[in-house]
């Protein structure tokens, strides 16, 4: 029997049962085209990234390791629907994951197409045609197409995220807000910062001009020792440490505690 579960957010987040005895997702028939993850690779329409021996990876979920018994899970209460992090459909040995974005939670009035339509306004949740990730237990393999879509489901999977290549590192350091001094150049950027650059690039793409300005003033607030040129609006980067501070700033890893007003750096982040 097929079952749909929902994982809720927060400290008390858990799996809850939603629907049983319905096929939620159609399992794609092109899963045999698995390709090892490589962020530079652009998938063809019939290809999937695959992580083999997934159960041995540290970002594998305990949920996938235990026997699936639908009666173990409580029914999701009506109030719980507002708090769903992601959906998991169990379809005879195959787990399909769908991250739930606020846009898939619809609170609009609608009517179904029928002979006797009636106006309804109960919120609805949209199920994607293709799941974000598929775990096939027999093959112990996780299939997915877009890594960013599943990084909040499998915590730590972003370690697969690529390192920036030489060209990307150069491109990043050529940004207007970076001013290289003391012979610091793309050649001297080490592995850890290259990973951060790859992520920061993706983050920066989502910012508009105003948001970028906000980020820069935020960085200056927390990294007083990072030199900033008011006129040219750029940070002076002379070593790996400076670059790290700037990259952490772009990822907004600095924060101030509410009680005690202590400035801190988060060494890893998970959206709550």
């Amino acid at each position: 029997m097929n079952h749909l579960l929902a994982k809720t957010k927060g400290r008390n987040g858990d799996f809850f049962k939603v629907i049983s005895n319905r096929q939620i997702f159609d399992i794609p028939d092109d899963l045999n085209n698995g390709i090892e993850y490589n962020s530079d690779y652009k998938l063809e329409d019939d290809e999937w990234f695959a992580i083999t021996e997934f159960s041995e990876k540290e970002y594998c979920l305990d949920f996938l390791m235990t026997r699936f018994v639908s009666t173990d899970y409580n029914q999701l209460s009506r109030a719980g629907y507002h708090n769903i992090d992601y959906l998991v459909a169990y379809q005879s040995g195959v787990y399909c994951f769908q991250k739930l974005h606020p846009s898939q939670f619809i609170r609009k009035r609608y009517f179904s197409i029928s002979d006797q339509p009636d106006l309804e306004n109960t919120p609805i949740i949209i199920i994607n045609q293709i799941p974000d990730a598929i775990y096939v237990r027999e093959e112990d393999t996780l299939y997915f197409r877009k890594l960013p879509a599943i990084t909040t489901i499998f915590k730590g999977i972003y370690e697969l995220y690529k390192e920036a290549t030489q060209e990307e590192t150069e491109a990043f350091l050529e940004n207007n807000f970076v001013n290289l001094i003391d012979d610091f150049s793309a050649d001297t950027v080490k592995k850890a910062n290259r990973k951060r650059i790859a992520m920061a690039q993706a983050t920066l793409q989502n910012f508009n001009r105003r948001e970028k300005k906000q980020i820069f003033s935020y960085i200056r607030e927390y990294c007083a020792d990072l030199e900033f040129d008011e006129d040219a609006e750029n940070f002076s980067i002379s070593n790996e440490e400076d670059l790290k501070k700037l990259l952490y700033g772009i990822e907004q890893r600095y924060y101030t505690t509410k009680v005690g007003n202590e400035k801190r750096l988060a060494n890893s982040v998970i959206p709550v």
Partner: protein
Amino acid sequence: MNIINLLFRLFLTFNATSLILVVYLVKEKIVINSWLSCFLNMSYWCSYLLYLAIPVLLTFFSLLLSNKLADDSIEAERNQPVIKEVEQANNAYLPSYLGYFFVALSVPHCDTLIFVFIILFLFTFLSQTLYFNPLFLVFGYHFYYVTTETNIKIFVISKRNLKNPKGLGFPNLKRINDFTFIDKNK
């Protein structure tokens, strides 16, 4: 779906506790003979049987209604057992039922009975695991505590005679609440 489930649970609770009313009516010798002139010479037994028939019919109706509940399943896959332990619970209801009957037999007034019944109804409803209705036995159902391989214990109402957890599965369950399930396999 939620409304159906709530109504069904209220209904089951009523069925499980309604025998107390039957016992009280019999004890007080309240009969229907005076309702209609043609009933006048009828034996008291007819009234008593009628009282008993009502919960039986309601229980039968509740079993029909249970088909509308949400589906669930416990399935053994790749020959790995999924059930760790099955424990019969048919006898577990007996002490509570004897308690109900003695209360019904010793309650002096009708208003005391109504008060006691409301309290019993409330606690049976809220306790969730106590849908023991001995009338299910009449329809061939048995009660079981089932522990799954994941070490979670649930309460199953089933027509089957379950003994050996090996190879046992419940492909067609209906969820009454998060702890109680009714098995639709025969």
